[in-house]
């Protein structure tokens, strides 16, 4: 299988920003994760390797270095709960507990129905609006267990 034509055209534009093609690799990994099922599959690693003229293992070496890339499939919704210091001082632990209860997923795990993955993450740069989580790429800040329940309950 090869990369979808749409992504190839996008990447052809993307790499023009840089004097060396390889600089497009991390942005391209992001786009693949967004468009191709929410994770970087072995197939994607191979396809990106051939696009960038690299060995699949080199692409793997990059993808596995960065916490934002998932090398395993995730649930339909990904809740990334910050567990760093400023959030912890304002109730990140209680938030984590509550998120797990509402979603049925454990930290670093996916709920049995495949709907939610809960992922503890380090500081997200929202420390003055703690605690927070990122739900499918959107920040939710100044959270309380009640607010979290409202946001996530709607997706149940």
């Amino acid at each position: 299988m090869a990369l979808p034509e749409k992504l190839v055209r996008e990447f052809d534009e993307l790499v023009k920003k840089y004097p060396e093609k390889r600089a497009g690799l991390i942005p391209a990994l992001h786009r693949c994760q967004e468009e191709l099922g929410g994770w970087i599959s072995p197939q994607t690693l191979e396809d990106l390797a051939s696009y960038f003229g690299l060995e699949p293992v080199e692409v793997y070496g990059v993808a596995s270095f960065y916490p934002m890339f998932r090398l395993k499939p995730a649930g339909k919704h990904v809740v990334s709960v910050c567990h760093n210091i400023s959030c912890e001082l304002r109730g990140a632990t209680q938030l984590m507990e509550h998120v797990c209860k509402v979603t049925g997923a454990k930290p670093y795990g996916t709920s049995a129905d495949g709907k939610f993955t809960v992922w503890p993450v380090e500081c997200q740069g929202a420390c003055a609006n703690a605690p927070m989580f990122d739900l499918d790429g959107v920040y939710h800040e100044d959270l309380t267990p009640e607010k979290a329940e409202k946001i996530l309950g709607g997706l149940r």
Partner: protein
Amino acid sequence: MNKFETWLLDRTKVANSHTLAVYKQLGGYHALAKVLTGAKPMTPAEVINEMKLSEIRGRGGAGFPTGMKWTFMPDPVKDPRPRYLAINADESEPGTCKDRVLMEKDPHGLVEGALIACYAMRAQAAYIYVRGEYRLSYQRVQAAIDEARAAGLVGKNILGTDFSCEVHMHKGAGAYICGEETGLMESLEGKRGHPRPKPPFPAAFGLWGQPTTVNNVETIFNVPFIVLRGGAWHASIGTKGSKGNFLCGISGHVEKPGVYELPFGVTAREIVEQVAGGVWKGRKCKAWFPGGSSCAMVKGEDLDVVLDHDSLKTKGSSLGTAAMIIFDDQTSIARVMEIIARFYDHESCGQCSQCREGTQWLSQIFHRIATGHGQEDDVATIESLAKGMAPGKTICALSDAAAIPTLSAVRLFKDELLECVRQKRDPIPYPRVEYAGAH
């Protein structure tokens, strides 16, 4: 606190401040016009000179004088290689959340600053490296670049002059180490964010081996103001060695956490009590970080210190990113350090053994102290481990960043840590959920 002049956050308070129309209404791109097409256009050397006169120091954490950094770029006649500006928008230091405000609400300010900085250093392009999680920042700055390009402000022959310059957005993917300037460059090149040994320094061997300057978002954001109002104006504000206003993100146990613009010279107490509404719930401050988790903790009784580069040294700490984190008197230091040590363990890139092994041990030992499984000599072990990790023993300063808060915790709160070990539990209660880390 006396009244003071502001500029960094003024525009962010106006509706639609992220659009070119509003930015222009508020005087946007006047600095660029002054430099390129004003009655007396400025030479690159003149711009650098204003930056030097301004005495501004980098806002990314290390506080390096910006004007001086710009002079490190080689003479373009002797060294005609392509050259770049890399803008550090990785913002991952725990507690730090200021650059995001500028990028989301005033992205044209950053673009204008980038253009002037590139002009001064004769760089042909700026790459803005934004942490991947900051999606709105990315969208807003990209939209600003697109608008500016359509208006002839980015790209070829800017404002009809022979100055051409590109500004590109680049997305990171969630690694703190990519905020370290050489890790950032490796990452931008599409590799793992492994910091490079220095020398060679970025000005000689940076992005793709070419001369490069790395600056923080807030540093670059100040450039148009300095160009318009003059370096001397900027140098007239602040304290000796710390000039201008800075963005102070304050988080943790205060009534009104937030990102505030303040002049150098205010005390930490003024910030906590007058700006951030005081320690929450009427409690007292037990300890605080002046600028992110990588600097030394300071005791609550030392809040009267001025928040600037030199004054904090008298308390054994440093300004860092000016991201204050406040702990109330019911906070467990073992718990705080458990989290901080876990963070550095998670983020160490693993190239240097002191850092790779040291951060792992610190994390494990603080975890066992905090959970009541501490061993008799654990506090002493932590201290000797941290001393073996810093200063300057590794390729980059992440190892120091892990060691410094650790040593401060041992220095200030040794008895409390020893008490956790002795009682086989943390005497200060707090909720926990146990889960093993995923690296």
